């Protein structure tokens, strides 16, 4: 029975962690490079097996669960280590283990010049991350999800600061962890409220009874969903808690590919999708989610346009695409959001790995202004990157088009024209900055140093194979979610992912379900129009990019001079980091200093403790003055006492 093997999926990477962690040095780089990827590959195999087992069942019966043991039970609070495999988590398990496996293989090549201890440590952390991500995705209650949530946060901290010799990397890691923690603070409050309302944190208890326990649109539903969304914003780097992702590029590139593109950052989308029953009860929060998603998408795209570091461009692109996913989920098109998550995992991972092989070839050079003309030197990287760039730009028949277009259509269909417009604009911008990156890197003349030119070489097979596989997925990936609008014309091709996820989102809009079922019904002409619009915008973006950065390379410089103010603001990322530092970090440190110096040492130690001491010392000095040994003073006091008593008795 598949159900009682579920624990194997997270257990395998955990075994990898223990083996590499403890015996890392002894089994040498070879051993580590077998165990690391091997464990994740095995986990992928088991996940695939579970996926197939699920697929074989009837749609309603597609859940496998396994309760390993009761983790915490205190009073009426109970949380257990239990795993739930249903279409949603199965999909994500495949993404995490599949893309994860490819990235592990890629890392063997990318990190081969690390020393033995560093190599083992790297793979230990990578396996630990995979374990934590799987726990997050497969958890059957919010608390275990939170354990995975903070676990991946820890791994991202460790991996960003992997080369900790350079203090900047360590600071970037710390920044990532703390900003994530701010999100987790919100998540925790959401869990507390949820426990207050439902008396449990298990999905089985909370989600089905959401409609009955929470009153739609009520304050409780609003606050639970909002706090959970704060957690998602922290983890998935949306406005305002996105500042850590660009700095997270300090980590090795495969890490950026795995954690900051394909898996961890999508945890927020998964969590919102998973608790869709709650979000359906709080339409106001859904609107916020969609709003922030769209805003982040546009905002990040603008910044991505002017970045010169190749990885920073991809980082802002990721933030932008995540905005898309949240837009999709925000308009209750949960399946579309998850679909975009899957396709994004493919092409964004590929883009990062491609960038990695470019950086690898140029021995660490990340500045696009010193690249160019690498087409001939890195053919495989060139073609796979081209596929990914086309996919992300949303050119049919590649993956990006289907998932992004689905979200745009659903946004329009759900009656959010403004958000649709922003989405469309962002699609154009995405095409623009992606092809800017593409042309600057691969076309034009090589702007690197002569010495780099000799050493230009294609990456070893261990790196190119994952690139090609991901390339294929970027092309093919979209076909699992062909919308009926196209599906029917192509002879009844079903929207596979929609129907696959339907049981999980069964109670989403009835219309959405019907839509997913794909049976023939009148497809509003507007859908075709929007599809055409998004393709047009994408092509426009590509041509503009070609014009600006290939045919007339001096133009961007001139534009930059003309709009100098706008250019500087953009290149400095709207000065958000400096803003946060001024508003939050510096005042907090100052307040802490104040607390320590003034309250602790000054007030309490100084005044109270020191004060009492001083009073006692003063009192003793005064009283000793009276005992001066001079008899007259004694007698005076004596006689003074007599007079006092006399007066008291006579007149008292």
């Amino acid at each position: 029975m598949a159900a009682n093997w579920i624990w194997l999926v997270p257990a395998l990477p955990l075994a990898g962690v223990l083996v590499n962690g403890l015996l890392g040095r002894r089994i040498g780089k070879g051993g580590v490079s077998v165990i690391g990827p091997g464990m994740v590959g095995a986990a992928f195999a088991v996940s695939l097996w579970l996926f197939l087992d699920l697929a074989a069942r009837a749609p309603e019966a597609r859940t496998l669960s396994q309760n390993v043991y009761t983790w915490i039970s205190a009073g009426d609070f109970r949380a257990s280590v239990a795993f739930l495999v249903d279409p949603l988590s199965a999909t994500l398990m495949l993404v995490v283990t599949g893309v994860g496996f490819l990235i592990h293989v890629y890392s063997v090549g990318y990190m081969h010049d690390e020393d033995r201890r560093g190599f083992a440590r790297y793979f230990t952390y990578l396996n630990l991350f995979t374990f934590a991500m799987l726990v997050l995705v497969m958890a059957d209650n919010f608390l275990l999800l939170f354990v995975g949530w903070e676990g991946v946060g820890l791994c991202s901290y460790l991996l960003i600061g992997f080369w900790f010799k350079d203090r900047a990397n360590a600071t970037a890691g710390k920044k990532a962890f703390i900003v994530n923690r701010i999100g987790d603070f919100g998540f925790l409050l959401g869990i507390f409220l949820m426990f207050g309302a439902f008396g449990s944190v298990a999905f089985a208890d909370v989600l089905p009874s959401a409609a009955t326990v929470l009153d739609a649109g009520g304050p409780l539903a609003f606050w639970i969903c909002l706090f959970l969304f704060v957690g998602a914003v922290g983890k998935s780097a949306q406005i305002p808690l996105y500042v850590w992702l660009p700095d997270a590029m300090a980590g090795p590139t495969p890490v950026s590919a795995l954690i900051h593109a394909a898996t961890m950052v999508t945890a927020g989308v998964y969590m919102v999708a998973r608790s869709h029953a709650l979000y359906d009860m709080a339409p106001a929060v859904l609107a916020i989610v969609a709003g922030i998603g769209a805003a982040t998408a546009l905002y990040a795209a603008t910044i991505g346009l002017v970045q010169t570091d190749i990885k920073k461009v991809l980082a802002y692109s990721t933030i932008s695409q995540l905005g898309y996913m949240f837009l999709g989920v925000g308009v209750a098109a949960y399946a579309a959001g998850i679909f975009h998550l899957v396709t994004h995992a493919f092409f964004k991972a590929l883009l990062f790995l491609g960038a990695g092989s470019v950086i690898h070839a140029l021995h660490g050079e990340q500045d696009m202004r010193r690249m160019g003309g690498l087409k001939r030197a890195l053919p495989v990287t060139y073609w796979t990157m081209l596929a990914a760039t086309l996919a992300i730009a949303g050119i049919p028949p590649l993956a990006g088009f289907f998932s992004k277009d689905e979200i745009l259509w659903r946004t329009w269909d759900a009656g959010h024209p403004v958000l649709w417009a922003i989405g469309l604009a962002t699609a154009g911008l995405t095409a623009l900055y992606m092809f800017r990156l593409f042309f600057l890197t691969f076309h034009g003349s090589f702007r690197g140093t002569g010495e780099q030119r000799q050493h230009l070489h294609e990456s070893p097979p261990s790196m190119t194979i994952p690139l090609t596989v991901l390339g294929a997925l970027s092309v093919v990936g979209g076909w699992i979610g062909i919308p009926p609008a196209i599906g029917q014309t192509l002879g009844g091709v079903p929207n596979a992912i929609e129907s696959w996820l339907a049981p999980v989102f069964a109670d989403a809009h009835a219309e959405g379900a019907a839509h997913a079922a794909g049976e023939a019904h009148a497809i509003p002409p507007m859908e075709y129009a929007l599809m055409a619009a998004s393709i047009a915008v994408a092509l426009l973006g590509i041509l503009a990019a070609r014009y600006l950065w290939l045919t007339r390379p001096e133009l961007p410089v001139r534009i930059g001079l003309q709009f100098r103010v706008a250019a500087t603001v953009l290149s400095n990322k709207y000065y958000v980091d400096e803003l946060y530092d001024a508003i939050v970090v510096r005042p907090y440190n100052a307040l802490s200093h104040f607390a320590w110096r003034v309250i602790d040492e000054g007030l309490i130690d100084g005044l109270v403790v020191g004060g009492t001491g001083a009073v006692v010392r003063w009192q003793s000095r005064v009283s000793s003055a009276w005992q001066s040994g001079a008899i007259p003073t004694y007698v005076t006091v004596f006689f003074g006492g007599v007079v006092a008593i006399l007066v008291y008795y006579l007149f008292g």
Partner: protein
Amino acid sequence: MTGVAIAFWVLAAVAVLCSLLVITSRNPVASVLYLVVTFFCLAGLFVTLHSHFLAAIQVIVYAGAIMVLFLFVVMLLNLGTPQWFDVATTPLKAVALVLGIGFVGALAAAGVGDFEPSATGPAAGVHPDVLGSTEAIATALYSAYYLPFLVTALLLLVAMVGAVVLARRER
């Protein structure tokens, strides 16, 4: 104005004057002599109060014995010459004066001047002269106050031994 009143005022004035001189005079010998005069005035006052026995005791014991002792000590330690250090610092004097005046003022304010105790003692009706006579005191001394009498005797003995021990020159 009866003879007694005149005597009282004269004796009172002299007593006050001499005691003031005792505490203000530079020369200790002069102080001793003024003190003797004061004691005589007091003896006189006792007489006006019909307490003749006590007046005699006052003269014999106080003026005679104690003051002689004082004079003897003053001569022995040749303290005759006025000492520079003698009078206390001004603030102390001020305090003393204030306290003194305060003391007297308080009593005066409390109406000690016109205080008329009611004659309720055991020997209330007896004529003052009889009361003040020697046998009256003697009977009292040997009957009711017999124990204190013995204790005083013992006290005097101890005092004598003490004085001798203290003043002895160490060998």
